[in-house]
């Protein structure tokens, strides 16, 4: 197997694994956060605006972990430096 095939295989598998494993944690965390926010809303309905705002800010922070994994996965597929380096002689630069 030459280096071109090896880099392609490694990039594809890693991209898939990154986004697959990287979304498990944030999804579980967000589920917990929303569940606790809902129960505290049920306990104190007049603090609804504060709870909702804090919930959204917290969800965005948790979501950014999944976004980091997504960005790494996209870089591996679309802006992969190893792939462009190894494909450059074939393209004829």
């Amino acid at each position, binding site marked *: 197997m030459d280096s071109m095939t090896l880099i392609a295989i490694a990039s594809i598998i890693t991209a898939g694994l990154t986004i697959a494993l990287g979304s498990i944690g944030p999804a579980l965390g967000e589920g917990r956060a929303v569940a606790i926010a809902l129960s505290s809303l049920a306990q104190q309905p007049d603090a609804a*605006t504060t709870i909702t705002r804090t919930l959204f800010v917290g969800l965005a922070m948790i979501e950014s972990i999944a976004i980091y994994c997504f960005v790494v996965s996209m870089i591996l597929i679309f802006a992969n430096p190893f792939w462009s380096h190894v494909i450059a002689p074939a393209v004829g630069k």
Partner: protein
Amino acid sequence: MRLSPDALIFWQHGFLKLNGTIVFTWALMLVLVVGSKLITRKLRSDLKPARWQCLLEIVVAGIKTQIEDVGLHDPRKYMGFIGTLFLFVALASLCTIIPGYEPPTASLSTTAALALCVLVAAPFFGIQEQGLSDYLKSYAEPTAMMLPFNIISELSRTLALAVRLFGNMMSGTMIIAILLTITPFIFPIAMSVLGLLTGMVQAYIFSILAAVYIAAATREDKQEAESTQDIKT
């Protein structure tokens, strides 16, 4: 398939490039500035203001309330900066309805620039409120050993701001592009709606986080706690 509007080049001369990010950013700036100028030409404070003035008043009052809720007690000082952040990011994601438009915040350059503005603004407002020596002393709290960690946390939350906004916007446009090649009828529209929702939420998150960092830098939360303690004792 483009990763960002940076690759969409309208005009090139040597190393000067006019790419999609620059064109769309300047178009948004034009819309915001010219729109506000036109609406605020004849401001009326009687009981029947014009319709567009009502819209602007709702937006400005809403931003002012949010800044106050974060803990900054004089929102007029910060409303220019935080309001501009919110309006720019919100308009950038709202205009994805227009065909042929790509949000400039889907490029890491734009989001990095906005995050750098927040990185500079937090110490700027902090020094304006507290004075230089008090602000620099706050980096060594609670002990002097925390100094490198506080500096690292400043840099990492700036990076997080940039990558969060970039990732959300880029994933929205990329999902629509991918779905257009697979099932081009209903699902791209559903993903467009989801992209609008996440765009608005990310605009709100970006400006609220900027306000929280500025509040932490100006120690408004600590000052408020001390003043209520004085009243109690």
